[in-house]
């Protein structure tokens, strides 16, 4: 894909190829929604990163002492304290599950996003050696990955709504908030609530997906520059690649943090009555 004499369609092919998931069918998904298809690459990398994050945190937790902490313990403790402080400020109620969810979300997404730092061609090329022709390694740059997590947050919101307010209380709130308790306002309120839930969930997932997808795309465009194998292309690749990678450090951490904060905010809203 990186021969020096590529023309425009070939560059397009390169991008399209890189944006094609490895699916269980082995073919590119054609329909917009097809529940029979599963993205093996997204699943593999997200589970791998999840397991890696968990293993690191479990090691730190196992070794945790109240004495002088080591570097790993100190780092994980900083994360835990940061999450604990945020969750305490945002969610008022039982946080035994919510705070760990926020920590998981932050570390997991951080790790998945960080896969973007690997050269865009490195892992797909290695996979190709083993006969795997499509490989997208950043799970958060897959809408399924990002929306899957935001759907999880939605389910948690519904669960805590019912747990805190009771099913009746929640239904009551669905029809009386935000505009008020009047029969004429019931449908308006309900529609608003539904829009709110959908908008929250979609924007939650889409924000992460959009940022990571765009970041990945920019890395591919930069890689295309290098693939011209000219002095200018090489120079451009090095300079632009460095700048974008450095800038991407911010995006990777920021998006993980934003996702975590929104998770806490949405769950916190489920704890508050209108």
């Amino acid at each position, binding site marked *: 894909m990186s021969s020096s004499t590529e023309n425009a369609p070939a560059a397009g092919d390169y991008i399209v190829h890189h944006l094609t998931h490895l*699916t269980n069918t082995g073919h590119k*998904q054609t*329909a*917009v*929604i*097809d*529940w*029979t*298809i*599963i*993205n093996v690459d*997204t*699943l593999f990398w*997200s*589970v791998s990163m*999840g397991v890696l*994050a*968990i293993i690191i*945190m*479990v090691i*730190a*937790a*196992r070794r*945790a*002492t*109240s*004495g002088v*902490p080591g570097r790993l*313990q100190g780092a*994980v*403790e900083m994360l*835990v*304290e940061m999450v*604990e402080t945020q969750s305490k400020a945002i969610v008022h109620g039982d946080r*035994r*599950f919510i*705070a*760990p*969810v926020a*920590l*998981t*979300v932050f570390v*997991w997404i951080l790790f998945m996003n960080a896969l973007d730092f690997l050269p865009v061609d490195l892992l797909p090329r290695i996979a190709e050696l083993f006969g795997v022709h499509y490989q997208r390694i950043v*799970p958060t740059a*897959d*809408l*399924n*990955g990002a*929306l*899957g*997590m935001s*759907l*999880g947050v939605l*389910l948690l919101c519904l669960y805590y709504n019912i747990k805190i307010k009771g099913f009746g209380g929640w239904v009551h709130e669905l029809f009386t908030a935000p505009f008020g308790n009047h029969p004429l306002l019931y449908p308006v309120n309900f529609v608003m609530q539904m829009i709110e839930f959908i908008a929250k969930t979609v924007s939650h997932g889409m924000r992460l997906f959009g940022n990571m997808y765009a970041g990945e795309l920019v890395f591919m465009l930069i890689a295309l520059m290098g693939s011209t194998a000219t002095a200018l292309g090489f120079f451009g690749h090095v300079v632009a690649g460095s700048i974008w990678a450095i800038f991407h450090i911010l995006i990777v951490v920021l998006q993980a943090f934003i996702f975590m904060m929104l998770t806490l905010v949405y769950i916190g809203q489920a704890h508050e009555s209108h």
Partner: protein
Amino acid sequence: MNLNATLFAQLAVFFVLAWFTMRFVWPPIMKALDERAGKIADGLAAADKAKADLVHAEKKAAEELRHARESAAEFRSGAEKQAAQLLEEARTEAARVVSAAREAAQAEAGVAAQRAKEALREQVALLAVAGAEKILRKEINPLAHAELLSQLKSEL
């Protein structure tokens, strides 16, 4: 930008990871953090207490020092007074002893003089008698004139 079953797989993974974190990661770390916070709080409290103790001990030491100084001064003045008293007593005693000795010596001297006088008187009487005897051997009978002689002896 296609949706497929990956969505639900990711959803499941989300909850598995979250549960795992809640079960195995969060509690030990929070426990360690809380314990350390407790230790630090204890340490700070102990430091505060030690500081308070130090102030207390310093105050007590100063108090003790003052006490000791006071009692030392008291002792010293008491000892001085006692020494003066002892000196006075000794002086009186010495004067008494000296005067008693003088009196005793005087009395002894008186007695000795008396005794010497007596002995002298005795010998003078004897001498007188012997003289008189020699003079009067022929004409005086000592027996007839005993009364006269004893009268003479007492008059010496």
